[in-house]
Every structure is written in structure tokens, then in C-alpha cells.
């Protein structure tokens, strides 16, 4: 005769009861525990004990609050602090870049001066010019210099490169002629063509007949890109120009759209550190195409933001809607570009 041994069901471990009361178990585990609890008095008592422990802990910790009521400050204030911090970071980066640039210029001028003094067989003896003062009218050390020495120094003096003051695009255009005679170092050149626009479609290529674009390549861009002034772009694109408040506009490229379509626009702006940021606004397919053609790996793009669509009359009657996107690209981190994209407004 077989003797059946009935084993008592396993009691619920204490940590499982904690997890059960904290609602950290799956449904099946909860169901299993509840089934056991319905029949096991020991586990019911244990459950009550754990619940009391849990409640006392919560009560004790609730007394450790800095204030009876904690009211968060306005989220807008926090946002402003975030924007301010971003601006300060950009400003610091600009200062760092400028000081590096200035140091490089001083080093270049200084080494040039030294090399010239050493290499020149007719160099003037007994006259030393500190590197840092190489560009200034040369102070003569102690003895009064003869007149021809002073004249020679004046002749050799290299004018100090003056960093170009960044102005708005319109002002820059207007002052271009007047500034040409000054000794200035050009600002970082905007290389829109190499950044986003394939060489075949760049404005320079448009004027040149050296590399005519292949017909197959032209298919997705069968209209010509034009570099236009901000005012001209405003006239052509109307209210469809992307613009990041507070950054200087350094160039606008524009490709006219089809009938009823707004043009595709690339607005290049320069931030305080001198970094070029491009806002690209146009039909989704075209914007994606431009991004794919973007050459360098260090260029990043923000997430696409939807802009007002175009409504185009289709040949068979009716109206077709073309969706459009806005993307901000540049060498900044994606997070920063996303923040700038949120700031970008359609003018």
C-alpha cells in the first residue's frame, strides 16, 4: 500500500512579501502569493508584520523633509538658466578659440620677424625688437637710433592683423568695399558648398564651366542653387526663412521650388564661437537628400522639425500636400543642435 506524504506548501520569504507589497512582482507571482496567503495563517501574520514595518519606515522617512511643502520654481526660470548657460558656454568657447588664434598669429608674426632678421644679409645690427612688439612702432632700447635705422624699422614693421568685427550680413555687404584697403585677417570662410551642397550644385560651380554637372546627378536637384542676400531671400521666400535668434546671418542659399512650392533654403549663421550653423528648410525628401550628401563625419544634424507644408495643385485637379522639415546642422553636439532647432523660427 502506497503511503502518500503531504508536504506543507513553502512559506513566502520575507523579501518576497516586501516586493509583493511594493508591487514589484509580476501578475503570476502575485497570484501565487495571494493563493498561498488565503490558506496560510503564518504567512498572513508575516504579511501584516511586513506591512507594518513598511508603513513605519515610510512614516519615519516622511519626517525627514526640508520643508512641509516643497514648491518647484517656475519651469520657465529653469529654461532661462539653461539658455543662459548655453550662451556662456558658447562665449567661453569663442574666447578660447580667439585666444588660440591670437597666440598663433603672434607666434607666426614673431617667427617671421626673427627669420627675416636672421636671413636678411643687410639686417641692422644692435637693434632688438621684442616679439610681442614686433608690429608696433619699434621702441629703441637705450641709445638714440640713427634716423635711417628708424626708417628701416618702420619699413619692415608688419601691420598687426586686426580681427574682423562680425556684423550682420547686410552691414557686411555694404561695408565690403570700404574695408578692402585695411589690413584684416578674414573671418573663417563659410564653406557651404563643402558642407552640404554637392560641388556640382554650388553657386561657384554654377558660374564655372570646368565641371559641368552630370545630367543624372541633376535629377534630384534640377533647379539651381543661388547665394542671395538676407533681404533678397526674404523677398523670394516670404515667411519661409529659418532663423535662429541672436546669431549673425552669414549666408543664404536658396533653391526655387516648383509651381506652388516654397523654395528650399539654407541659412548659415555664425555663433559667438565662430561656428557655422546651418538651418535647412525644405521638402522632406530634399532635406534628407542634402543631409545624406553632407560630407564630413564631424558634422551633426538636429532632429527634424515639421514646418508648414506646401499645397500644390496636382495636374489631375485637387490639391496635393507636400510635407516640409527644418533641420539644423553644424559641428556642435546633437543636443546643442536640437536646442538650436527648437529656437529656430520661420521668418
Amino acid at each position, binding site marked *: 500500500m502506497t503511503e502518500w506524504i503531504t508536504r506543507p506548501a513553502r512559506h513566502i520569504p520575507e523579501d518576497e512579501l516586501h516586493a509583493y507589497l511594493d508591487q514589484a512582482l509580476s501578475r503570476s507571482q502575485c497570484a501565487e502569493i495571494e493563493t498561498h496567503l488565503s490558506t496560510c495563517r503564518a504567512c498572513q501574520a508575516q504579511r501584516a508584520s511586513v506591512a507594518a*514595518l513598511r508603513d513605519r519606515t515610510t512614516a519615519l522617512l516622511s519626517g*525627514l523633509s526640508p520643508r512641509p511643502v516643497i514648491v518647484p*520654481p517656475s519651469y520657465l526660470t529653469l529654461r532661462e*538658466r*539653461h539658455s543662459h548657460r548655453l550662451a556662456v558656454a558658447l562665449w567661453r568657447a569663442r574666447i578660447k578659440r580667439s585666444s588660440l588664434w591670437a597666440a598663433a598669429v603672434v607666434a607666426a608674426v614673431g617667427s617671421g620677424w626673427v627669420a627675416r632678421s636672421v636671413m636678411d644679409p643687410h639686417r641692422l645690427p644692435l637693434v632688438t625688437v621684442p616679439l610681442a612688439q614686433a608690429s608696433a612702432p619699434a621702441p629703441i632700447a637705450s641709445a638714440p637710433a640713427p634716423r635711417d635705422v628708424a626708417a628701416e624699422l618702420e619699413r619692415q614693421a608688419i601691420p598687426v592683423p586686426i580681427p574682423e568685427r562680425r556684423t550682420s550680413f547686410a552691414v557686411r555687404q555694404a561695408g565690403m568695399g570700404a574695408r578692402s584697403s585695411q589690413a584684416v585677417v578674414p573671418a573663417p570662410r563659410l564653406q557651404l558648398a563643402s558642407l552640404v551642397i554637392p560641388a556640382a550644385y554650388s553657386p561657384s560651380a554654377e558660374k564655372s564651366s570646368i565641371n559641368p554637372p552630370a545630367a543624372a546627378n541633376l535629377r534630384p536637384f534640377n533647379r539651381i542653387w543661388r547665394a542671395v542676400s538676407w533681404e533678397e531671400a526674404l523677398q523670394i521666400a516670404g515667411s519661409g526663412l529659418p532663423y535662429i535668434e541672436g546669431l549673425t546671418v552669414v549666408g543664404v542659399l536658396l533653391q526655387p521650388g516648383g509651381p506652388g512650392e516654397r523654395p528650399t533654403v539654407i541659412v548659415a549663421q555664425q555663433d559667438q564661437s565662430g561656428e557655422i550653423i546651418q538651418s535647412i528648410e525644405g521638402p522632406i525628401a530634399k532635406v534628407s537628400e542634402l543631409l545624406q550628401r553632407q560630407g564630413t563625419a564631424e558634422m551633426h544634424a538636429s532632429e527634424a522639425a515639421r514646418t508648414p507644408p506646401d499645397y500644390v495643385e496636382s495636374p489631375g485637379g485637387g490639391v496635393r500636400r507636400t510635407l516640409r522639415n527644418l533641420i539644423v546642422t553644424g559641428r556642435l553636439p546633437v543636443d546643442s543642435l536640437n536646442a538650436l532647432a527648437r529656437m529656430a523660427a520661420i521668418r
Partner: protein
Amino acid sequence: MDDLERLYKTHYAAVVRFLYRKIWDADRAEDLAQEVFIRAMAHRPEKPRAWIFAVAANLARDEARAAIRRKKHLTLLKDDPIPLSTPEPSAEDSVEREERWARVTGALAALTERDRDVLLLWDAGLSYPEIAAQTGLAVGAVGTTLARARKRLIEAHDRMDYQAGAAHS
């Protein structure tokens, strides 16, 4: 209202409390909580709630280190817990409240760092998987740690309560 703004409104108080229980300075806790959310604006984390508490824990740790450098007495790092600042008590129950305060902070300081972290994260509203991700524990071990931490907190508190009662009598 974006997700982060929603999280800010629902979790700001929890983050302040969490930080306060680590650094025991109400004003500094609020400053650090705002710093956490400003950083979240810049980073846009995928799991913002867990990220916020992870950053808050790091900031609290840095703050504690800085306080040590300034030779301040921090409750959680000293044998004899003396809170840097306690909430301003009302006139009638200030003594009793201060004693109660000292017992709870003392009990919390009696826990191991891991037990305390798990307990504070749970009290801040984090789930078991979030606590596990932040502390490096297995999810299954969170329940065990939490059970032990609760038990030790209550035991330490009751022991201090008994000692205080004996001293008064």
C-alpha cells in the same frame, strides 16, 4: 508641456527630499535639484526619471566630498550625527521635534551606505528595476536589501527611542 516639464512638476519635491536626506542642507538641496533638471534639459535622457536620481546621487556625493574638504560635519559620514540644518520647528514642540529628528537621522546613519541608498531611492518613488540599475544590484536583490534596510532602520530607531526614554527617566 513636454515630458521633462511634466517630470519636473511631479518629481521636483522627491528629488529635493532625496538630496536633503543625503546632504542635510535644505537650500543646497533645492539648488542641486534645479541643477539636476537643468542638466536634464541639456542631455534629454532616454529614461529621465532614473537619470535624474542618478545625477542627484552623484551631485550629493560631490557635495559631501566638498563638505569634507571644508571640514563640515556631515550626518551620514560621522559617528555622531549632527544635522547641518533642520527644519524650523514651531515654538511649542521644538525640543521634542529635534529629538525625534535626531533619532531618525541617527537611525538612517546607522544603515550601511547601500541599504540607505536603496531605501532612499525606494522612498523617492523609483521602481525595483530602476533602483537595481542605479545601485548595481540584481533586481531580485533589491527586495532583500530593502527588507533588511527597513528592519535595521526601525530597530535602530527603537533602540535610540528606548535609550532616550531611559535617560529621561
